[in-house]
């Protein structure tokens, strides 16, 4: 007789979600599903609004990564204007995107995932949070908070505020950078780089301890999709789409982002409000792919900055053969490599004398009726696609959010972890925490509900077919 375990809500992620595990009579996991339990409706209520409002409107999708939406949306608006933005504006946008990457990755690694890694999967859930990390390793917790603060402060210096800045506008940015602000940012980055390198070094020594998790946390063969630069290097703002398969063969390369509808389809399942994007030529659900730090590093031939390139080479060594790194557990590793890259690249961009150029905005009105903006958010490739009428009002919107791309992979990953760790006859908190932890590897950003770390109530019930509760675990808020 089948039974269902429900993990509701999933904790230490951004947003609200539920996991359900369907058990067979024997107690083995038969099926696993990741449910997004919120409905937001952005694609619908943006209709009828002027396209110039879209960057601010869509940035409200999230409080953790609003900069990503701001950039993808403005790129879509640039496309509507049919302008090439001034080179300095592009560099400034890149800096803000990298600062966003820095703060978001720091949040994911230190605040949300380090409690599992440092304190253990089976440790007391009351202490398994950032405060537990502070108690065990105050210096590490302090460094994590500092690193995130630096990312947020750079966003504030550039955009006027840490969350939901409006400095990026269609056609470029609204204000040029002055030398005082540049110096203020440059002053913070050496400390950030030291913290990033130290954390990377520490995590490298920890990886062998998690051999078992690395073997079971989402190792299924999938495609990897990301942007790469013209030279095939790591890219977060612009570039071309590359898709590699699990053996490392390039399936698609140099695909212009505007051509994404040819290769990406979106399926819908009735158990989740999140769509299921897939690689069209392989159909649904075979066209499963992963995005985000793991995919970006698997696809990039190099980073283009000194220390990040060394770290990238070490990352590739995680896989014994020359194929892409398969385990979703190594999203954490990839995130730390990207943090180093972000800091090094920000230093390079800020030291460029042209960064103080005052020509930072191209002015135009809507010259096209369709615009596509694609950039790399911390969690993966982000696509904004708008259509406007003659008066410049939005009449169609499609947003393919980074976390959505990973939806199929997250569902398969929790099945794999549940198969490996969950015994349906006797639940333990630690085994279910591993099911949650594999979701945290992807750092899903399900909404702007950033309050959801470790403080939300968790109730798991194991029921037989008649509905009688045969086991129960409760974690209070």
């Amino acid at each position, binding site marked *: 007789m089948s039974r269902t375990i429900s993990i509701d809500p999933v904790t230490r992620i951004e947003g609200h979600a539920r996991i359900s595990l369907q058990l067979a009579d024997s107690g083995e996991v038969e099926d696993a599903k990741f449910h997004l339990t919120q409905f937001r409706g952005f694609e619908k209520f943006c209709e*009828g*609004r*002027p396209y*110039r*409002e879209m*960057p*601010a*409107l869509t940035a*409200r999708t999230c409080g953790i990564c609003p900069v990503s939406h701001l950039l993808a949306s403005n790129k879509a608006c640039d496309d509507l204007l049919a302008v090439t933005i001034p080179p300095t504006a592009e560099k400034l946008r890149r800096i803000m995107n990298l600062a966003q990457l820095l703060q978001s990755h720091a949040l994911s690694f230190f605040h949300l995932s380090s409690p599992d890694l440092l304190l253990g999967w089976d440790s007391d859930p009351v202490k398994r949070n950032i405060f537990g990390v502070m108690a065990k390793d105050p210096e590490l917790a302090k460094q994590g908070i500092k690193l995130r603060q630096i990312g947020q402060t750079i966003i504030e210096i550039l955009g006027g505020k840490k969350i*939901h800045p*409006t400095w990026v*506008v*269609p056609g470029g940015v*609204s204000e040029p950078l002055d030398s005082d602000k540049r110096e203020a940012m440059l002053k913070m980055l050496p400390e950030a780089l030291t913290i990033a390198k130290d954390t990377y070094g520490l995590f490298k020594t920890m990886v062998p301890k998690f051999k078992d998790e690395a073997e079971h946390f989402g190792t299924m063969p999938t495609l990897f999709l990301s942007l790469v630069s013209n030279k095939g290097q790591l890219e977060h703002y612009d570039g071309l789409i590359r898709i590699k398969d699990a053996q490392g063969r390039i399936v698609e390369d140099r695909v212009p982002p505007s051509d994404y509808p040819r290769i990406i389809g979106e399926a819908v399942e009735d158990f989740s409000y999140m769509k299921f994007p897939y690689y069209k030529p392989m159909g649904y659900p075979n066209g499963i792919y992963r995005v985000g730090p793991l995919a970006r590093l698997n696809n990039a031939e190099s980073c283009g900055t000194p220390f990040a390139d060394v770290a990238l080479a070490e990352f590739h060594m995680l896989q014994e053969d020359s194929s892409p790194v398969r385990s979703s557990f190594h999203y954490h590793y990839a995130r730390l490599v990207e943090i180093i890259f972000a800091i090094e690249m920000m230093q390079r961009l800020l030291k460029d004398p042209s960064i103080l150029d005052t020509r930072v905005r191209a*002015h135009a*009105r809507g010259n096209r009726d369709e615009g596509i903006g694609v950039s790399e958010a911390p969690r993966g490739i982000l696509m904004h696609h708008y259509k406007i009428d003659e*008066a*410049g*009002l939005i009449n169609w919107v499609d947003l393919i959010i980074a976390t959505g791309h990973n939806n199929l992979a997250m569902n398969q990953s929790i099945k794999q972890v549940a198969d490996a760790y969950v015994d349906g006859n006797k639940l333990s908190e630690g085994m279910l925490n591993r099911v949650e932890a594999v979701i945290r590897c992807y750092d899903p950003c399900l909404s702007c509900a950033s309050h959801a770390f470790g403080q939300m109530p968790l109730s798991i019930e194991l029921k037989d077919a008649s509905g009688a509760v045969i086991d129960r675990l409760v974690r209070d808020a």
Partner: protein
Amino acid sequence: MPIIATQPSVRVVTLRIDGQDLSAREDETIIEVCRENKIPIPSLCWMEGLSVVGACRLCMVEVAGQNRLLAACATRVTEGMEITTNSEKLQRYRRTLVELLFAERNHVCSVCVSNGHCELQWLANSCGVDHVRMPYRNHGYAVDSTHEMFRLDHNRCVLCTRCVRVCDEIEGAHTWDVMGRGSDCQVITDLAKPWGDSDTCTSCGKCVQVCPTGALVKQGTSVGEMVKDQHFLPILARRRSAR
């Protein structure tokens, strides 16, 4: 050539506002005397240089001997008047009025082009509106973006009719008018034609500049970029009255 205005023969009255003894010309309204003496009093529909409609009711004041509140913009001062501009009751009424404006249409500041430069936003701030206690109507109004230079968003409109009056009284075009009743009330151009098709609009932009919110804005502005310049109005109004 300087304009020479003849001095009107008006009397001076004495009155007391918030305990302060003041003198004023008898043809002045309470709100004008308050503005001259830097006594803060909120308003949305009133604007120096335009005729008075008394529509927003935000400038209501208490006058000794009157058993009802009076609109400061529509009440002339009289000899011996005793006025209270800021009592607990008035604060409560004003806050409620502002909340009703927010509940009636979509005034989400964070995504508005007038964010940071909006009179309604300043009012809400000064009246202590940290949340709205009544349910939002959530009624969507179509945006008119047909004009080459300007845009009309009914969702942001508070029906102050400044646009109607400035267009009629200062520009002389009378492009704007008001149509409908109650919550269906809307400002319109010509006989409810799209703004871009208006035969009378001179594209002078005065309506945009006097609009207190993000209802009338320039095309091409992004969030927070629409800054209004209203300095032209008193100058033009004085020249007009001197003709």
